[in-house]
């Protein structure tokens, strides 16, 4: 078996920004002194006149991008998820969200997979913060192929968009020659009828591993990639609820306010279903090698498998 390619979604972002920059003159990119880490530096090198470093001033950066948007630019604004969505939350809400400005917020270093930097930098609240802003599209691509598509879709979409990107190199799940993407569409990656695993970001690949293990135990698990957290693909999720009986959500995010809560709210109102939320259980992260940190918090195939056994009773 050929070795699986691993690429960090922040790298996909930098590469796609550079492509888009060549295609569209209205793209302008802003960063807050993290262009090397967020990979906006790739764009900056190619188009120095359309890159604005705001220094370590995220609040200012968000509103500067709002002003640029009113001039006709399509700003892509980047920092770490903690500082972009956390520090500048109210700027995003009032200066980007409320006026419906066409600004793309692309944050890297989201979730526990930041690893060694520890809890201060491991943002597990960004879905919650961005989801509650009316009109905001929230996406969390699983791999390189999906991240490239999400960044392109963000440009094509008129209005505010948040994209969560990761620091760690993660396996490429999708075949780029056989891949379709649309904002708001979840994708069934593996059919199944005993239980449905709804995953986002790097948890998608772990959900596929879990399904493989479950099949050996005679459990037929459906795996769904939910890249767009908002607007949620109600049709695909409610079909899974109807056909599989139980749902397991998997996210590298707090169980408060993220995919799990979105799915639980949807099913509670429209089709009451047993739901189990796998995520960060209302606690802070810790420092360590990122894979070890994910294991410590149960964000792995083994835990998904155990929860599936419990939920199905098999």
């Amino acid at each position, binding site marked *: 078996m050929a070795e699986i390619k691993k690429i960090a979604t922040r790298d996909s972002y930098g590469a796609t920004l550079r492509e888009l920059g060549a295609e569209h003159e209205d793209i*302008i990119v802003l960063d807050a002194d993290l262009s090397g880490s967020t990979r906006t530096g790739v764009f900056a090198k190619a188009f120095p006149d359309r890159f604005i470093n705001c220094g370590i001033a995220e609040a*200012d950066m968000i*509103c*500067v991008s709002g*002003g*640029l948007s009113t*001039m006709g630019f399509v700003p892509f604004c980047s920092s770490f998820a903690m500082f972009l969505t956390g520090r500048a939350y109210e700027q995003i809400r009032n200066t980007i969200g409320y*006026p419906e400005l066409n600004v793309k917020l692309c944050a890297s270093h989201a979730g526990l997979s930041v690893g060694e930097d520890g809890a201060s930098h491991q943002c597990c609240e960004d879905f919650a913060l961005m989801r509650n802003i009316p009109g905001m599209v929230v996406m969390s691509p699983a791999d390189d192929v999906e991240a490239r598509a999400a960044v392109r879709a963000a440009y094509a979409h008129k209005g505010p968009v948040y994209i969560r990107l990761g620091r760690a190199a993660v396996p490429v799940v999708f075949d780029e020659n056989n891949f379709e993407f649309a904002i708001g569409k979840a994708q069934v990656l593996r059919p199944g009828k005993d239980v449905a695993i709804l995953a986002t970001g790097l948890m998608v690949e772990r959900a596929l591993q879990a399904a493989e293990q479950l099949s050996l135990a005679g459990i037929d698990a459906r795996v769904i990639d939910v890249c767009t957290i908002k607007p949620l693909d109600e049709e695909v999720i409610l079909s899974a609820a109807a056909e599989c009986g139980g749902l397991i959500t998997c996210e590298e995010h707090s169980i408060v306010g993220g995919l799990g809560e979105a799915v639980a709210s949807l099913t509670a109102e429209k089709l009451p279903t047993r739901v189990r939320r796998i995520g960060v259980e209302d606690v802070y992260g810790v420092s360590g090698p990122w894979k070890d940190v994910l294991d410590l918090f149960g964000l792995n195939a083994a835990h998904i498998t155990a929860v599936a056994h419990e939920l199905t009773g098999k």
Partner: protein
Amino acid sequence: MTSEERTSLRRMACKIRMGIIEGTYNAKSGHPGGSLSAADMITYLYFRHMRVDPQNPRWQERDRFVLSKGHAAPALYAALAHRGFFPVEEIKSLRHIGSRLQGHPNMLSVPGVDMSTGSLGQGVSSACGMAIGAKKLNLPSRVYTILGDGEIEEGQVWEAFMFANYYKLDNLVVMIDNNNLQIDGPITEVMSPYPIEEKLSAFGFFVQTIDGHDFDAMETALARAQQEKGRPSAIVLKTVKGKGVSFMENEVDWHGKGPNQEEYNRAMEELSNALREMEAE
């Protein structure tokens, strides 16, 4: 400026003050004090200085105005209405259900509003974005923004000032409405931002201080600001909160409440008398 032009501006400023009273009276809320202190500057910008077109509010080459102290919306709305962006009659709908005139400026609903504001400290950053955008697009547009003197207690304002200087935004004019009062009291007793001029200078601005109710001083200062190349300009406006309505002047109580019927009558009578006197000139 001829004396006729000056009188015409004074008359317009008086009508805008009447609009502020009309709006906040009908809304039974709002911020008359800071609207009245900024009314003369806003009058000057919209009726003598800025290149705007009420028939084409989104004209790409226009000058931009960001009311960073968004609570002075009644003054901006009155100016826009009198300038022809929407009917003057609409001022009475301020803060009402279904009105375009939200409590704080909303660029989506009000023609002529260049940026939604209201949360202090954010408008000045947006103005920086417009100014750098205009430069990158080689537009002749200049960008004007008014901040409250209390507003500059927000840290983001200083991030924006650093940005304006670093990117040499000489098409940006930052104005500070220095009326000395914020909600909780005199700014020197809440959290003094003084010395304002020295701080702005240290942040790289070309700084001027003028009487914020003197149209001739505004003319001189804005012309001088326009000549300044390679750095942003700041104009500290020495103003009186509540200016033009005797019982509101320098009274912190008038920061954020609407006049009642009796107060409305008194204020409108004062302003009408002032307008009549000017018309007799």
